[in-house]
């Protein structure tokens, strides 16, 4: 549905977006990650046709955004950053206005507006003017605007920004549900959101794509992905380490912390550990030697670690020192 090729944007001498290419198909939810000022919003603005790219092309549903913007824009629903809305209008007036610009009239318009008011829980404020709304309601009003015409492509810039935890949960569910039938791009700072909602994630740093994959694939890039955490009882750190390092597939074991009789260790595998093979051999050892243990699990790797490692290599290196 969305094909972005070699997209670049310069503001004066500064290159905000530099050679970004990706594709999003129907049924995919693409998460856009990156530090502030990495070029996420600029990329989204180019995809939605708000700003023209300096180089490269954007195609939505086969229509080129530069050469044939109207049919391309018809397919898109867009929630800009900070959810702008005309503050002097009522919620209903604003949605009616947006629906008319989307080409919905008469009975169709009424049906569409009723549907989104229902979906976004706006019944209680429909006749209120937008400037009197709380941030959460204003945000949902703008979100409602973006799904009025049931678009095939949905682009959202920080859709859960400024919402309370319940509303965040609600919006995430909505995105996941809609993601089954639409092509969705959304940007966020919240990494758990990516794991909860996205089928694929792209990390952007300084205008370039630095990682592109499913959340699981990205997590595997984490330094500790594939290692096993284990908590054993009544063992001294030295003895525990020795025992675990005897296992053939173990590279090293490090003690994480000690608390009375309990001891937490991280066991790193030699090479790639497949399907919890390492955890199995550790479990066998623990059972064989009749050692008491409380916890044993394979680390999936953490997205925030990956994110930091990719976007700020120098800070992570310092931390490791």
């Amino acid at each position, binding site marked *: 549905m969305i094909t972005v090729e070699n997209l670049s944007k310069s503001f004066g001498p500064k290159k905000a977006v530099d050679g970004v290419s990706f594709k999003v198909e129907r049924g995919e939810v693409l998460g856009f990650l990156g530090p502030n000022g990495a070029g996420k919003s600029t990329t989204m603005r180019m995809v939605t046709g708000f700003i023209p790219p300096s180089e490269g092309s954007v195609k939505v549903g086969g229509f080129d955004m530069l050469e044939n913007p109207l049919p391309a824009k018809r397919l898109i629903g867009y929630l*800009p950053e900070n959810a702008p809305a005309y503050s002097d209008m009522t919620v209903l007036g604003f949605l009616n206005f947006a629906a008319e*610009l989307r*080409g919905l009239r008469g009975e169709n318009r009424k049906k569409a507006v009723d549907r989104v008011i229902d979906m976004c829980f706006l019944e209680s404020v429909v006749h209120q003017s937008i400037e009197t709304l709380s941030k959460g309601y204003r945000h949902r009003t703008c979100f409602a605007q973006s799904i009025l015409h049931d678009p095939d492509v949905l682009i959202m810039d920080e859709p859960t920004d400024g919402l309370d935890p319940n509303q965040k949960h609600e919006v995430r569910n909505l995105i996941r549900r809609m993601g089954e039938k639409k092509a969705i791009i959304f940007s966020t700072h919240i990494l758990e959101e990516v794991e909860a909602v996205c089928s694929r994630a792209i990390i952007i740093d300084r205008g370039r794509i630095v990682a592109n994959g499913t959340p699981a694939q990205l997590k595997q890039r984490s330094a500790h992905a594939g290692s096993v955490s284990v908590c054993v009882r009544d063992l001294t750190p030295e003895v525990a380490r020795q025992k675990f390092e005897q296992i053939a597939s173990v590279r090293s074991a490090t003690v994480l912390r000690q608390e009375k009789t309990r001891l937490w260790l991280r066991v790193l595998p030699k090479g790639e550990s497949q399907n919890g093979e390492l955890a199995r051999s550790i479990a066998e050892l623990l059972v064989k030697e009749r050692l008491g243990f409380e916890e044993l699990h394979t680390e999936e790797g953490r997205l925030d670690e990956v994110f930091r490692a990719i976007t700020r290599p120098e800070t992570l290196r310092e931390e490791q020192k």
Partner: protein
Amino acid sequence: MNTWANIKTITKRELTGYFASPVAYVFIVVFLLMCGFFTFMLGRLIERGEASLAAFFMWHPWLYLFFVPAVGMRLWAEERRLGTLELLFTMPITAWQAILGKFLASWLFLALALALTFPIALTVNYLGDPDNGVILGGYFGSLLLAGSYLAITSLTSSMTRNQVVSFIIAVVVCLFLVLCGFPPVTELLTRMEWPGLVSFVASFSFMTHFEGLQKGVLDSRDVVFFLSVIGFSLFATGVILRAHRAG
């Protein structure tokens, strides 16, 4: 067909935007009071003993100088401040539909304010026997004049996100276009013995072109002048908005 529907939608929104706040009513009342004051006190409509609205129309270039930029200053500055420009320009409409829709809304608002001055026309009709064709021509000219000021305000409004800045620039530009045909200025140029320059500069003035229209002389050159000011300013608005988006 779709084009006009989009323009109509935007015009409707802008117009309801005006009347959503009491400011619109205050504007109209102040405009009407000023019209009355200038016409009767300074223009001495009654004492003149003329059955015409010359004393009414002659003040319009000056009245509009502040009134029109005040009405039009929010057109694009407000969109930029609220960030709704991003919403508007990602909708399936073209930029000129939005520009024209907004312009028409403000122009209709000004037309309404102007139409509400009808008691003055009635007064003249009651007291004497004026040429109503001339009065109608005067209203037509006044409307074109207001449109030209408005198009310039639309242009200045697109340059900034601050309404006050847009207001001030619009007043300055309009003042310049009024003054370059104002007798003291043209006389100064005549005294400097640049006769060619005088007619050249004066031909850009609202005054020169409004003078004929307010007397009921419907010269196509004057009409074309006002329409080209409107057309050019709206076109430039589009260029500036595009440049702003391109960064």
